[in-house]
């Protein structure tokens, strides 16, 4: 495999409400920032991730393209998934050997609709969606299957929110308190905040990466796997697909100093720590993770960016990022980054 590194990362200061910016207005500043950081104005390939259902309109990514100033025309693609998969597509494209840079971005505004209900439409349209099972309900099914210790879950939420408060891009959420349930056994404080935001990453190969950043975050492994859709066909307390992806990406080939996990609920962090075989000395989600800011469709890409940032600033030499898609962690993507 060709050496590819993350050489720039930018994200919006995510908000828990609609600031009035359209999606392309969210994207423009982060694209400009990574262009400035790298000095690159054109890229060999561009790929984005988003979801029409968040905007409530088909082809919402089309106006996003206007934010890029894609002129002269660019080589570009889009995944209707989290931007983490857009990064994967770009990484694959860079393996061909004929281009040396790629721009990746992801964006979403969950504030525009009722996210919990919208996610219902992701389920099998004939048998599951008509039941009206919303996102919190199916997450609660998984939380019940995990049967985690309440104190451990509380600690994850407390830690995530505290880390989020010291992250200028995440939300300022108070110390969790109250025992109110959202859907049993999920408490209201276990639920990730509705968040609007965007993120952008620049990938570069070999020599170019070294010229663009003094500490490039090299992608040493990247893999993703899916599982059956039907919750009844899965062992919900575990994530076989995250474990497979982690093995394929080579997570355990060295110590992991920092892991950024796309865990939207505290029980998901427990499942993922086990699937990725992360040791007790791995720092989990120092950014605060999705429990402190959850810009849907960018949240997975933000994990990769945050994991890269630790290498860029020299505070870590080996980090792992995880992104998820589908109900109850159906799909998982794992990236291993090294200095």
């Amino acid at each position, binding site marked *: 495999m060709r050496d590819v590194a993350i050489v720039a990362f930018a994200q919006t200061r995510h908000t828990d409400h609609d600031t009035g910016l359209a999606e392309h207005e969210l994207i423009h500043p982060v694209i400009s920032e990574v262009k400035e950081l790298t000095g690159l104005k054109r890229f060999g390939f561009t790929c984005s991730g988003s979801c029409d259902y968040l905007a409530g*309109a088909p082809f919402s990514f089309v106006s996003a393209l206007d934010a890029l*100033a894609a002129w002269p*025309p660019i080589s570009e693609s889009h995944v209707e998934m989290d931007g983490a998969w857009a990064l*994967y597509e770009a990484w694959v494209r860079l*393996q061909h050997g004929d281009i040396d840079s790629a721009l990746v971005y992801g964006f979403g505004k969950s504030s525009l609709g009722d996210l919990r209900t919208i996610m219902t439409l992701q389920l099998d349209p004939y048998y599951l969606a008509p039941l009206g099972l919303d996102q919190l309900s199916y997450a609660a099914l998984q939380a019940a299957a995990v049967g985690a210790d309440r104190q451990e879950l509380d600690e994850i939420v407390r830690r995530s929110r505290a880390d989020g408060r010291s992250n200028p891009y995440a939300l300022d959420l108070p110390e969790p308190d109250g025992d109110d349930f959202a859907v049993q056994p999920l408490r209201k404080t276990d639920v990730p905040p509705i968040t609007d935001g965007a993120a952008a990453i620049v990938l570069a190969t070999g020599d170019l990466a070294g010229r663009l950043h003094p500490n490039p975050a090299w992608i040493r492994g990247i893999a993703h796997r*899916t599982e059956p859709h039907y919750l009844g066909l899965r062992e919900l307390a575990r994530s076989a697909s995250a474990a*497979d992806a982690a093995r394929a990406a080579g997570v355990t080939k060295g110590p992991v100093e920092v892991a950024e996990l796309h865990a939207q609920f505290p029980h998901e962090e427990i499942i993922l720590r086990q699937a990725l075989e992360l040791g007790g000395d791995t720092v989990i989600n120092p950014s605060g993770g999705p429990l402190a800011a959850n810009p849907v469709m960018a949240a997975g890409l933000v994990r990769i960016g945050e994991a890269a940032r630790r290498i860029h600033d020299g505070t870590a030499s080996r980090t792992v990022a995880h992104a998820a898609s589908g109900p109850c962690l159906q799909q998982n993507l794992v990236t291993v980054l090294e200095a």
Partner: protein
Amino acid sequence: MGNRCAVIGVGQTHYTTKRRDVSIAGLVREAALRALEDAGLTFKDIDAVVIGKAPDLFEGVMMPEAYLADALGAAGKPMMRVHTAGSVGGSTALVGASLIQGGVHERVLVVAFEKQSESNATWALSTHLPFSASLVVGAGGYFAPHIREYMRRSGAPGHIGTLVAVKDRLNALKNPYAHLKIPGIDQKMVESTPMLWEPIRYLETCPSSDGACAIVLSSESAATGTPAWVHGTAMRSEPIFRAGRDTVSPQAGKDCAADVYRQAGIADPRRQIDVAEVYVPFSWYEPMWLENLGFAAEGEGWKLTESGATALDGDTPWNASGGVLSSNPIGASGLIRFAEAALQVRGMAGEHQVDGARTALGHAYGGGAQFFAMWIVGRERP
């Protein structure tokens, strides 16, 4: 451009207005199983699945790849979802090819679909973001002014669109999977149909179809059967809103063609490409794309159409399968172009086979004629 990649299997469903007998999952599985059968393989032999479709709002299922993982044998494997508007079928094939060319996988299943009967695509296409007035209804409303501008610039006579509509429907009569089979189709019949969006008449536009298409892609070492080799792949996009953008002959289309021709060593597309499957959802897009893709000089595309050169027995056949005008499961339409191009160079296109086809173009476009995906496939190894 990376490792060699081949199409070793093609599977299609019979395109039709309504497939009431299958779910969306049943539809895609039907195409996938046919592609696997063609390749002499099973789901077990597949390393990854790439799925493409046009907007999720068409069927009302958000990110349907999650639900379709089971039906496509993707459990335990990587699965990706591509969405690049109308060009998505082509882009999906290119993402699949990229996984082979980049050396990541040996065999990839690529599937694209649309089940338009479970939706109302024209309505979904007419939804605009708040604060921007929608002055058009459906894709035809958007593209009709571009066609009128083409006619003004080129001086093309009004019957050219009719010729394409007849030619593609005659080809469709030879394609067992085609949706529209209109016996006795002729110019008079097309001209007698209602005007939908001046100058586009009812029979000059594509149908709404249910259908899926699948291909199996492989590396050189994993190839089976009769491969169609990928000689070039390219995608290009440009913004929908830009002062001076030429929507009649978009720069992104020209650049995409130039890139894919360069990779495949094509200097004269009309002479060197034996058959082209080009995304023509409205009949007038044939002369327009003949120029955009360099088969004819600017303003000359309609003359090529009028001369019969693009007919099945012409010297540069376009849409031997009947094209998008005869079958349009939107999300799959681009992949069908790419798959039909592969069938032609494999010599497996049946009654609509172009004799001796060795090099073929697959083309797709989408959005406001701003997204392009193309590939060149050939009988010989590149």
